[in-house]
């Protein structure tokens, strides 16, 4: 749910990175944080366990520049991927403007991917959103690993609707900004339509 402030001439949007445990959601945000100019970003917050697994969320505020005199700000969030943190995941989806689904390309994680997409669909539904209507992109991460599914196969399983999709290697940044730009564009286009 966007926040438009006429007084400070700002527009704020919320993007959530969703996906199974250890698929690279936090790594996506860390890369964006590392490669963004200091003036365009705020502090990155990670509420994580001692072993650096996301416990509640990661948060990264980003400024993209101005559109017609309005500063556009994006708040990027990740959810905790592990199945038993479902209550936390629901909370983070509140007020979401756009979703990135980060899939783990490894064949052995295919079931986890599918379970996570279904979980996303259910949790969005509980908030009164539908996956078909919310700005949504898919990222096939870990393309550098040996035992991975083909993109065709991933698309068939995870992206039957053919939303924008990107291949990525998050630690080195491959596909990270393409994914972010794509979802940010979809969010702004939705706002233009007046749906935000």
């Amino acid at each position, binding site marked *: 749910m966007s926040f*438009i*402030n*006429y007084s400070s001439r700002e527009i704020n949007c919320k993007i959530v990175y969703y996906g199974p445990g250890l698929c690279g959601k936090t790594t996506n945000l860390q890369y964006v944080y590392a490669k963004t100019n200091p003036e365009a970003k705020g502090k990155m917050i990670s509420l994580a366990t001692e072993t650096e697994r996301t416990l509640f969320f990661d948060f990264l505020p980003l400024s993209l*520049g101005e559109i017609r005199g309005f500063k556009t700000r994006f708040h990027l969030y990740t959810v905790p991927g592990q199945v038993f943190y479902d209550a936390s995941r629901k909370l983070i989806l509140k007020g979401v403007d756009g979703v990135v689904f980060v899939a783990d390309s490894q064949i052995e994680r295919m079931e986890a991917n599918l379970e996570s997409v279904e979980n996303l669909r259910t949790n969005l539904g509980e908030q009164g959103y539908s996956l078909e209507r919310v700005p949504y992109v898919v990222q096939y991460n870990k393309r550098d690993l040996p035992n991975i599914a083909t993109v065709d196969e991933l698309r068939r399983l995870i992206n039957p609707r053919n939303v924008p999709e990107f291949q990525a290697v998050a630690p080195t940044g491959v596909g990270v900004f393409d994914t972010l730009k794509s979802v*940010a564009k979809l969010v*702004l286009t939705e706002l233009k339509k007046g749906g935000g």
Partner: protein
Amino acid sequence: MNSGLVMYEEEYRIISGICDRLTRDANAKVVFLVDKNGQLIAASGQAQNLDTTSLASLTAGNVAAMGGLAKLIGEKEFPNQFHEGERESLHMSIVGGRVVLVVIFDAKSSLGLVRLRVKKAGEELARVFDQLAKKQATPGAQSPFAEITDDDIDNLFSQ
């Protein structure tokens, strides 16, 4: 989709005025107002030394988590929360079901005073947010983004 929050100049001035007065009346260090989704709406007092964006996001996370806990024990939500620190303390109060009023204070104030002042300011703020919701629901209230073009959006990503 649910429509987002829109803040206009007039209401923003009233809201800032209420927050400024609360800061003085409650002897607080900082007062800020956050949308339940984590967007900062207004800040007052010694806020310039604080990372208010992070504060806003964590406040919303905290209120959401406590709301989840409340539901588990059969409560609707916890409308008021107090966190006591060694030197500074934090009071959070849900206003009009939609925004969170946060007061940070130290030994110069007290929980009793803060609660008293927050109650009054909260009622005033709730009225302003009702007014805002009505204004937003008026036909003809348009998104400032309605007129932007695809090129405007593309230009944002051209660098």
